[in-house]
């Protein structure tokens, strides 16, 4: 088979509905599981080696200040200290914005975020780093670095940053309006817009209009493993980095750009990663550890962030202010919607407001719309991606308003969404025509679910009220990105699957299952492994719900190549034409000859050339994801505390390769969404100091805060994937805040317009309503 026929085979396999799989849909034990339940799995901070030094970072105590001077002499004088690095050790980069797949990056900003240059832009901004013989000495040395600051006034929220007299973070920044550059210094990095139809006409056709402003707090991904990096700058100039990253090749490119080195000088070894959720795409420590190694006599240097560092200097996703005006006719049709979103990007431009602009109204078919989005810099950590970036805040606003419209019209909230829900062929609010999606299916399954059909439970006490809410969410998964895999057939019939997509939540087993399905063998006979950047072709990050989709296609194609080669080998064995060989369920047949995959592998052995295949692809079949959630809450009217009583997540998952891990994605996303809805927030004082930089006061949900999370997997296969895979990981975090807000409104009559809906904010809203 040549490559063209391979393409045909792949596309011939795309008729996926009603297919009966042997491996896909089963629940085998993940290959990396035993190491992870016994403590043997090696995460980034678990690397130990001879001569290891430890690095620590000095961070800014101020939210906004000019650095006048840095004196490292006292630190260097401390016994046990090997080296100090500052921004002066990094190459000076031009302000160049690179197109990077679907995103963009200004390398100079990335560099200044690693080690601050002229200014510190948030409390916790890295300024210098020290290497020493142990972490305690390194920490002490960091505290001996003397920095002189000129303190500037900070802007923490988008409202503060957008004021005309606001303190300016980046002197060179001008507002970009689709290529038009503003003329005056500003904190508004960009303004984008979708506009279609006629708003006035749309609103005048409405019989009910709801208009509200929503405010949401900065929140963090909250992965339990802190960022870490271990690096050796070898005497030969080769750099080796062990790190926890969502993508080894991506980390390599960022390190190369920041250090102005060719990528071939750098090898990144992605270790097991303890959660990322988008926050471990950008680099923070890797080049710093490498520079410390270079300046410490080429000894290995390990850096691990403290939890405060993680919260103060990595991750968070944007706080936002969102205004929504929406009108609907008596029959429930949404006639017009006008939305504006302002997202805090943190210290450098790049909030997820662009995706939020699509997320906010895309579940619905609306003819008259205008959506404005503003990316605003603030004296808070540079925003990073967080699971469906920008989606949760956006959906909180829109889903609240849709719910309120439904209430006012006396329409059931699921019916309201059925009336307006997007279907194949409908025009999306962000422009394009919708492809096949399963939104309506999720709504129908929600309506007939045991949860929705059940009665609400009675309040547990006289001071409590109970209510039920519904919320939906749309997410435009990353259309693919590049994935590369290699496959080797061992002489005992097992198969090595070599990939570069870091496995955060069980993707290795999913890849093994897809290869097993393709080859007609058992998943346990596949040995999936994630390798370093020198050992496999380029792989984009594990993000954007792309891995099972894109790497899955690569795995499938590699499997087809293996089948092709195995047929060739069988043909030689039987002395027949390869074209006569039929391959099905792991058995090769030609006339009366037949042989199993394993047996043939044994016969081939190692003496006659291995059967191997490599594939690198960049597919383009975005599978849009949609979900509908139902939640029951109990609100203590005296304390304002909201308890989640029952939760059901219904999602179009395309095809669930390993259903348990798909359910896990839904449950995990819901849990994060509930945390965002109820208690998670960055608390700053007026000077911009982060006050709650610990896992005690940054309150992610504990086991006692959540009920079991029921899931309903709706399978509407994605026609661009051989097994119908659609990205599933991100959309589960989109509906929860809206759904919980709607449940609170149902219980109490109170429309919450602020996240988190913490007890304090709940009480304040109740008091305001009582006035």
């Amino acid at each position: 088979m040549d490559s063209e026929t391979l393409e045909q085979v792949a596309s011939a396999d795309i008729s996926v509905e009603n297919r009966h799989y042997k491996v896909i849909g089963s629940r085998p034990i993940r290959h990396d599981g035993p190491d992870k339940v016994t403590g043997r799995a090696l995460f980034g901070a678990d690397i130990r080696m001879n001569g290891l030094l430890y690095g620590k970072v000095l961070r800014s105590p101020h939210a906004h200040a000019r650095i006048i001077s840095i004196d490292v002499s006292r630190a260097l004088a401390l016994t046990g200290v090997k080296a100090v690095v500052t921004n002066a050790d990094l190459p000076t980069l031009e302000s160049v914005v690179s197109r990077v797949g679907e995103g963009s990056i200004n390398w100079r900003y990335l560099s200044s975020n690693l080690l601050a240059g002229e200014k510190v832009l948030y409390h916790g901004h890295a300024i210098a780093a020290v290497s020493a013989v142990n972490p305690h000495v390194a920490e002490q040395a960091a505290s001996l670095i003397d920095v002189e600051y000129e303190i500037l006034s900070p802007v923490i929220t988008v409202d503060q940053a957008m004021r005309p007299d606001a303190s300016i973070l980046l002197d060179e920044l001008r507002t970009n309006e689709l290529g038009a550059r503003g003329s005056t210094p500003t904190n508004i990095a960009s303004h984008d817009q979708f506009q279609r139809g006629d708003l006035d006409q749309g609103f005048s056709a409405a019989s009910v209009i709801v208009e509200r402003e929503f405010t949401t707090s900065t929140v963090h991904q909250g992965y339990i493993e802190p960022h870490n990096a271990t690096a050796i700058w070898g005497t030969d100039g080769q750099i080796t980095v062990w790190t926890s990253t969502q993508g080894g090749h991506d980390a390599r490119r960022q390190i190369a750009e920041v250090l102005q080195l060719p990528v071939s000088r750098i090898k990144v070894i992605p270790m097991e990663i303890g959660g990322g959720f988008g926050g471990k795409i950008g680099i923070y420590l890797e080049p710093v550890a490498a520079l410390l190694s270079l300046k410490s006599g080429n000894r290995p240097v390990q850096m691990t962030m403290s939890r405060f560092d993680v919260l103060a200097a990595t991750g968070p996703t944007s706080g936002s202010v969102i205004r929504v005006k929406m009108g609907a006719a008596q029959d429930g049709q949404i006639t017009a919607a006008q939305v504006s979103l302002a997202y805090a990007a943190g210290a450098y431009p790049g909030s997820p407001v662009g995706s939020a602009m699509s997320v906010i109204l895309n579940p619905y078919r609306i003819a008259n719309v205008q959506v404005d989005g503003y990316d605003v810099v603030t004296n808070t950590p540079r925003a990073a991606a967080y699971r469906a970036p920008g989606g949760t805040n956006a959906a909180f606003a829109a889903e609240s308003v849709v719910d309120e419209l439904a209430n006012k019209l006396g329409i059931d909230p699921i019916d309201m969404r059925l009336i307006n829900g997007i279907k194949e062929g409908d025009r999306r609010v962000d422009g394009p025509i919708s492809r096949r999606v399963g939104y309506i299916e999720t709504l129908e399954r929600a309506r007939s679910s045991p949860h929705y059909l059940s009665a609400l439970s009675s309040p547990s006490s006289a001071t409590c009220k109970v209510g039920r809410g519904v919320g939906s969410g749309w997410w435009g998964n990353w259309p693919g990105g590049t994935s590369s895999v290699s496959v080797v057939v061992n002489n005992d019939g097992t198969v090595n699957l070599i990939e570069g997509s870091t496995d955060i939540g069980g993707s290795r087993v999913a890849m093994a299952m897809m290869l097993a399905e393709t080859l007609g063998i058992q998943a346990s006979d596949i040995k999936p492994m994630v390798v370093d950047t020198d050992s496999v072709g380029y792989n984009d990050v594990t993000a954007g719900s792309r891995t099972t989709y894109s790497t899955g296609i690569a795995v499938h194609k590699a499997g087809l190549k293996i089948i092709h080669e195995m047929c060739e080998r069988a043909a030689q064995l039987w002395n027949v034409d390869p074209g006569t060989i039929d391959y099905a369920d792991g058995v090769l047949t030609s006339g009366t000859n037949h042989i199993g995959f394993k047996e043939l592998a044994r016969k081939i052995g190692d003496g006659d050339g291995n059967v191997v295949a490599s594939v690198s692809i960049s597919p383009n079949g975005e599978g849009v994801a949609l979900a509908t959630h139902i939640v029951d809450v109990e609100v203590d009217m005296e304390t304002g505390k909201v308890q989640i009583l029952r939760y059901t997540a219904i999602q179009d998952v395309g095809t669930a390769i390993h259903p348990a891990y798909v359910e896990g994605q839904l449950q995990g996303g819901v849990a994060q969404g509930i945390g965002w809805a109820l208690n998670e927030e960055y608390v700053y004082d007026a000077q911009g100091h982060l006050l709650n930089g610990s896992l005690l006061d940054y309150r992610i949900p504990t086991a006692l805060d959540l009920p079991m999370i029921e899931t309903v997997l709706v399978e509407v296969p994605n026609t661009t994937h051989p097994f119908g895979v659609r990205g599933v990981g991100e959309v589960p975090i989109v509906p929860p805040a809206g759904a919980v807000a709607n449940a609170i409104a149902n219980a109490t009559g109170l429309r919450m317009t602020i996240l988190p809906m913490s007890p304090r904010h709940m009480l304040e809203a109740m008091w305001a309503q009582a006035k």
Partner: protein
Amino acid sequence: MQAFEYIPATTVNEAIAILHQQGDQARLISGGTDLIVQLREGRRKPKIVVDIKRIPEVNQLSYNLIDGLTIGAAVPCYKLYGSAVIKETYPGLIDAASLIGGVQIQGRATLGGNLCNASPAADSIPALIAHNAIAVVAGMNGERHIPVQDFCTSPGRTQLEPDEMLVSIQVPAPRAHSYGAYLRFTPRNEMDIAVVGVGVWVALDDTRVVITAARIALGAVGPTPLFVNEAGASLVGQPIGSQAIEKAALIAQLAAKPITDMRGSAEQRRHLVAVLTRRALDSAIARASA
């Protein structure tokens, strides 16, 4: 973390001698769940850390009808709720001991440490005050007794002299028909710091209708845990019922001096004092009249 010397003391006198010699340079460790965090964050920088866990007196945990309950300063929380008789007799203390941190914190944390750490939001202190507990303190000049209600002087500071140590906490034997309760409010259901905590204790007459004595103490609404004598006193002689309880709650609320911080607003705290005082009294009265 700054380097320090670690000395496992085996007698009270040895520990006190070190404190006497070293003054502020020495710090005692029992469970370490506060101290180790403070050392790590550089909030305390002792040169010497004295481990008191091998001293017999600080490990005693005993109860009898005459002396009541003796809780050695180094007894971890889990041992309190591991004892059936303590659980039954002092459920109001157990309420607090089982709320400090999670299970793994309770494996190490002690009420003694909770008291000496003197956090305004400490869970055990309002409960101990409500139960009229006494801190037994040893120093170079012998032993002295300090009512827990007077023990804390400001956030992180106590009446302990630099060369004194807490040996144990004495909780009086309960009188008939008396019980305590502790309630706190936190946004999460566990692993959280009290936005407000309320410890109460009530005694009923033999008919279990009239309140004969009551004590109410508040946490996280002032620089130290706050004993509100008037609130408890207002209940004495009153029949159990919502009227008396509402009044006591109102007095407690007026006594609170909350501030706004990252964990809650002053207004929210003032509001919660009344709610929790009411609920804690309901709970203690229900226990006492059962």
